[in-house]
């Protein structure tokens, strides 16, 4: 619903004295110009143009998408499931904010540690006081480097989160493409 405030009508009466002041004259000129003939008040919710999590279609139709990318957020719980699994997400359970914050920290940490080596989203599952982080790695680094990074990540995250952190790694030769758009 739009409310139209007819400034142009008001202006016809008020413009004459106000236009004598230079700054007001400039303002009136802008308001009365074709770009802003009236002021519009938006009283209802913003237009729901759902764009979150959608990828732009490429010209050649050759942009690869993984399954996670191909399904926008409103398919969570329908076609794809959650990336964080813990009891705080259950109904009326405390600690959801803390867990979410920690999960975001773990994700940022891993994305920085395994830069360009992650094939898909990071899955974080918690069982009791153990955090299981499932990552899908690309074969871009030497195994020795991966071994070091895995141990490094587990140790540091365990100290950060005050929990036992375990990484569950799978390796794929390349990103698993679900479809091209």
């Amino acid at each position, binding site marked *: 619903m739009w409310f139209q405030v007819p400034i142009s009508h008001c202006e016809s009466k008020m413009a004459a004295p106000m236009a004598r002041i230079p700054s007001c004259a400039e303002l009136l000129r802008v308001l009365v110009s074709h770009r802003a003939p009236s002021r519009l008040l938006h009283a209802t919710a913003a237009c729901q143009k759902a764009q979150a999590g959608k990828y732009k279609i490429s010209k050649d139709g*050759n942009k690869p998408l993984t*399954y996670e990318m191909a399904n926008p957020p409103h398919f969570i719980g329908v076609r794809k499931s959650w990336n964080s699994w813990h009891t705080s997400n259950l109904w009326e359970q405390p600690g959801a904010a803390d867990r979410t914050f920690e999960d975001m920290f773990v994700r940022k940490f891993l994305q920085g540690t395994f830069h360009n080596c992650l094939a898909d989203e990071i899955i974080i599952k918690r069982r009791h006081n153990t955090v299981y982080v499932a990552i899908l790695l690309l074969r871009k680094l030497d195994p020795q480097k991966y071994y070091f990074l895995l141990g490094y990540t587990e140790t540091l995250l365990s100290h950060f989160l005050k929990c036992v952190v375990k990484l569950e790694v799978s390796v794929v030769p390349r990103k698993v493409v*679900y479809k*091209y758009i």
Partner: protein
Amino acid sequence: MFRSLGMRGIWRTEKDPPKIRLIDALLATLLALSELLLQRKYCPLEVAADWSTQTASRKLWCEIPSVTIMAAVCRNTFPCWSRRLQTSLCINYNSLQRASSLAQTPGNQRGPQRGRRRRDDGPASPSRRPMVPRAARMAEDQDWPSVWPTAATFKPSAVPLPVRMGFPLNRGVQPDKIGNNELRKIPNFLHLTPVAVKRHCEVLKQFCTDWPAALETDESCEEHFPLEVITTDYVLSGPSLRHPEARIVTLKLKLSQLELDDHARKKLLKLVGDRYDKETDTLTITADGCPHRKQNYDYTQYLLTVLYLEAWKTEPWEASITPEDRDEFLWEGSPSEQNIVSTIKAIQEAEKGSSDVTQDEIVQNPDVQLYKQAVVNQKNQGEGSEQVQGYKDSVKRLLGLN
């Protein structure tokens, strides 16, 4: 398959293919490949499909049986790869697996064929080949609980099952297990196979004792253990084991299990209020005021003790109770009792001239007892049709009007 054999490289670099007798090469290839296919139980359509995406239309190849495919392959591509015929005998399972995984990718395959290649597609010919997956080397009669002993995220290389998960694209199939993040998200029960559960139970058996013979039924359990304490332990994920709801202690008790006389029982009911459930005769005491469970448990014990002791006390002011103060009607000492006694005495006097029965004898008369019960029912349970009917019957019986 052909990519992994290095055929593409030859195809591109070989300018002048060597001349070899066509029929020899054809036969050798046919024999080698058909034998290979039979041994490995490998679906030939996928080989063809993989190859055909590179060269010819896909549907054409998918309809042709395996031997024909290979013959066609030989004939069409003979000049360029006849030199590597010996190599074809050495195709291992590895390359076949890779070819199959490539051929089975779901969804529209137009990406690499149309437009320029994207960096995300991965290298065109990866120099490193994957190892033979563990699932392919597993024996059929292996001990699965030792392969998957505990709860773990799904690992495609260790699960010899053709599992698929995900939403299939139009005219596509569900994504397979390799690199499938959806399969890795969900909790699996691969460590809880019936064999594993059975072994767990067998190990745990030595720590179990027999159930007490005296507690076979629920009634006997209630009799021997009248007090029921309910607490909840929360298994939660997080750095702390504490859960705020775990402090709550609920104590349940059947009131009939307590030793109470009429006065004590009524006083107890007055004290506990709505914590008593009339239907099940259960008293429920919940404590959640203290931060720890032990404190709350102690508080419930204290409450129960105090309630019981208070119920047995008779304060001096309790003697001044009037019938209006009572919650229920008491027939003894009520005007109803006096009226019925005087009425019966008057009847007997009218019949015999004099009445020598005492008040106790009149009250103990079964007809009077029936009348008493009817009056009490009507006063305490309300004037329903049943109660009124009972009252009517008892009065008629008392007066001998039946």
